[in-house]
């Protein structure tokens, strides 16, 4: 049986993201971790067919929960929900570019903080000043994670040969016609 060339790329990206998420500390101003695993999950959600995208999202969610001390379905269900939205947005405008990925992961990171707070809520008020500070920091930290995640995954895809430049024999892109 021939091994799918996507498999080592997916495994390497997930492992690297898990290590990075574990090792990169939260900023001193707020307890928000950079969501590298979410970024990797969203990259593959945008660039791969459904079965592969869902598999990556399942493992991205499971690893986030396993390494973060959260219930094992918390981030997993969140990423599944996000996937539906991402697929809808992809029909309209969303692409797997570094710029759009950075913005996407930044926004998703903010929602993820709220989701996790709702899921792992234990006593006290649901939303406090601390939560607001965390939300405020989730955007830039998530954008940083998105930039790194999309850039590294794109690079891994190109290096592995999973994504090839368009050949001239395939025709001319519409984007190229205005030059």
């Amino acid at each position, binding site marked *: 049986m021939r091994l799918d060339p996507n498999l080592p790329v997916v495994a390497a990206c997930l492992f690297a993201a*898990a290590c990075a998420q*574990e*090792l990169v500390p939260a900023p001193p*101003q707020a307890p928000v971790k950079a969501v590298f695993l979410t970024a990797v999950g969203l990259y593959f959600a945008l660039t791969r067919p459904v079965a592969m995208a869902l598999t990556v999202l399942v493992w991205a969610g499971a690893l*986030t929960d*396993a390494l*973060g*001390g959260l219930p094992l379905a918390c981030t997993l269900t969140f990423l599944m929900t996000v996937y539906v939205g991402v697929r809808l947005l992809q029909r309209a405008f969303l692409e797997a570019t570094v710029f759009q990925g950075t913005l996407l992961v930044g926004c998703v990171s903010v929602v993820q903080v709220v989701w996790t707070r709702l899921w792992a809520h234990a006593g006290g008020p649901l939303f406090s000043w601390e939560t607001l500070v965390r939300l405020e920091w989730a955007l830039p930290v998530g954008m940083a994670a998105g930039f790194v995640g999309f850039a590294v995954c794109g690079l891994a895809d190109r290096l592995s040969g999973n994504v090839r430049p368009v050949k001239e024999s395939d025709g001319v892109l519409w984007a190229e016609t205005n030059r």
Partner: protein
Amino acid sequence: MKQSKMWVWLLVLSLGALLFASPRVRDVAQEAVYPSANARLWFERTVGVRARAFFSRARQGARNDQLARDVARLQVVEASADALGAEVDRLRAILDFKPSVPGQWIAAPVLSRGGTSAVWQSVRLGKGSLQGVAKGAPAIIPDGVVGRVTDVSPHTCEVMLISDPNSRVACELETPGEGVGTVRGILFGGGSRSADDPHLTLLYVVDPLRLRYLDRDFTPPPRTRVVTSGLGLTFPKGLTIGYLLESKLESNGLSREASVVPAADLTALETVFVLTGGGPHAP
């Protein structure tokens, strides 16, 4: 096999593994990341320390002198402690008394704090079941209690901090006063700051812990030391947990509730000591 079909099977297998073997998945994930976390520690402790020493050699020299003086002082203290230890052993033999905390403390480096939302709730340590760490074992630093082990893999363990809202520790107040007797209570993790707390300047700090079910008729003075009572069967008796800030009657009027600041600086943990081998937590 068609490759898209392979991914469908992989997805089904993944979901199956998560459904039926979630604790195992958690262990495997932590063990997979452990070498990188350990490598970072090793790098910090070897390369990082040398690099810092290179750039601040004079400061290191002064520090070495200070440490040499400390070592000499501790040798004197140890000598007197040996004599005291021998006397305690002799008295225990007379009373046929067994030490309350058999086992030994092992030092474990802090690999990382909890993930996306659990920053204050847990830390991961670089010692696991292979080193004798068991679920429920207490974790301390010289300043005071840190928490207890909730999850163990072969090389790592998760410690639930005493600041976790789910944490409960049986405590008592140290020397509450003449004729008062022992004042005991249960220490709850701080959790979220209450909405009516005006101290908005206190960001990214550990909330005070809540010591509940204290004797209603005794008003403990501020700065009273709070120690473990040993009744919870997790922590041995007499470990410092924190210091009392203020107390008030609970809303039902039946008991008193106090706020307690942790003695250990939970924001700057580097090395934590874990009790191994037959402590009070052992079944």
